[in-house]
């Protein structure tokens, strides 16, 4: 299929324009990511619960088989581990490729749940006063009186080990 010189220039200009405008749309829409697949992914307001089949609870340790945890597959996504029986309440965040963090999932102010805000790279309380925490657990803003508990993580062979003690 041949193009005239004019058609080629028109198509090129449109493509460049579209590509140039993409970052703007991405910035505005990250928080409202479309969830077309069956896998639930987190955004700045919603956090899915980690797939049960990926979870192995040991004595003071937690093991997540990442090959069975699609909700944590992409960097920028987070998932809750909410095991009432074992008193485990965490948010696990896949911050960037190969790096995972585990923190308490409740705000230290009113014990409301937190969300991971990928754009701002911080955790935000979902309640009225929306305290903000850094990924090191420190309070960045708001009325939260103390930092979040951070749990050490170790990644080996697609298995994420979290030390709870």
């Amino acid at each position, binding site marked *: 299929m041949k193009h005239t010189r004019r058609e080629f220039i028109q198509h090129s200009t449109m493509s460049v324009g579209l590509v140039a405008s993409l970052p703007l749309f991405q*910035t*505005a829409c990250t*928080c*409202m990511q479309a969830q077309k697949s069956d896998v639930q992914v987190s*955004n*700045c*307001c*919603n956090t899915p*619960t980690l797939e049960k089949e990926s979870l192995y609870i040991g004595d003071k340790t937690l093991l997540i088989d990442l090959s069975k945890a699609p909700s944590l597959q992409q960097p920028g996504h987070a998932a809750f581990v*909410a095991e009432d029986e074992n008193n485990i309440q965490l948010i696990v965040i896949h911050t960037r490729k190969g790096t995972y963090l585990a923190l308490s999932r409740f705000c230290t*102010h*009113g014990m409301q*749940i937190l*969300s991971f805000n990928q*754009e*701002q790279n911080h955790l*935000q309380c*979902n*309640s*009225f*006063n*929306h305290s903000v925490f850094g990924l090191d657990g420190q309070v960045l*803003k*708001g*009325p939260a009186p103390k930092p979040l508990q951070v749990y050490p993580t170790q990644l080996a062979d697609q298995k994420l080990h979290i030390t709870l003690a």
Partner: protein
Amino acid sequence: MINKIFILTLLALLQTISVSSNELPRPGEKWTNPKDKMVFVWIPAGSQPMGFPKNETNPEPSKHKVVFPSGFWIGRTEVTVKQFQKFVQETGYVTEAEQAQAKYTWRSPGFSQTGSHPVVYMSSNDALRYAQWAGVAIPTEAEWLYACHAGTETLYPWGDTWDDQYAWHRENAGDGTRPVARKKANAWGVYDMVGNVWEWCVVFPNIGLPRGGSWSRCKGYKTRQGYYAEVFKDAVEATLTFPPSPYFMAEGHDDRGFRCILRTGTPINPQHEMGIKSPRDQ
């Protein structure tokens, strides 16, 4: 003779009523406060249902209507940084957050803002002092709700389905407030009643509660525990419990602002709950 006097008196009375009703502004009509250049819009006469539902702390549910017999003016937008700056320049006012030497204040809220952003880190006292200076007032919760609903009977003031064209919330605002009046106004021409900043309202003579939800609130979410919250629910429902949550009343935050009102008459049955003392009195 008596009949003639009666008829003349009646005619004069009718003429007076006719002139008075002609003088009433129309819904959405504008008035600009010369003090701060805030544009107000006219809210027509009407009434707002209020009351507390039955719950553990409030065994007797109550319902009543607050009537606004003559309508009122309400700020078309939230008070902006520029307007608050003028107030501070003229009066030397120091906000409560500044007095407390807080890390963040209305001058530096922790996100970028211009003069047309709504002023934040406001306490209810800061709002009252501003209103006093501007010769206006802070709305009661009933007045605020009435202006928010704008005479509609739909689920939201704009219809029965959520519409992002009317509200800033966490999922479309980003990391802070947005300039006022960038979203669509409600049917009476009032902007940002849902989202952008919480707006202080007077519930008791000595206590304020914020209405309207804010940029930091989610559009809506559910958790495993069944807890559900959304910016609109915050806007119109959240204080209908008693006593109000201390978390909800927290003052001075990056999403606490206000708008003003100018009353032209006395509301009937204006108190949220006449028999209940303010929590600050107990």
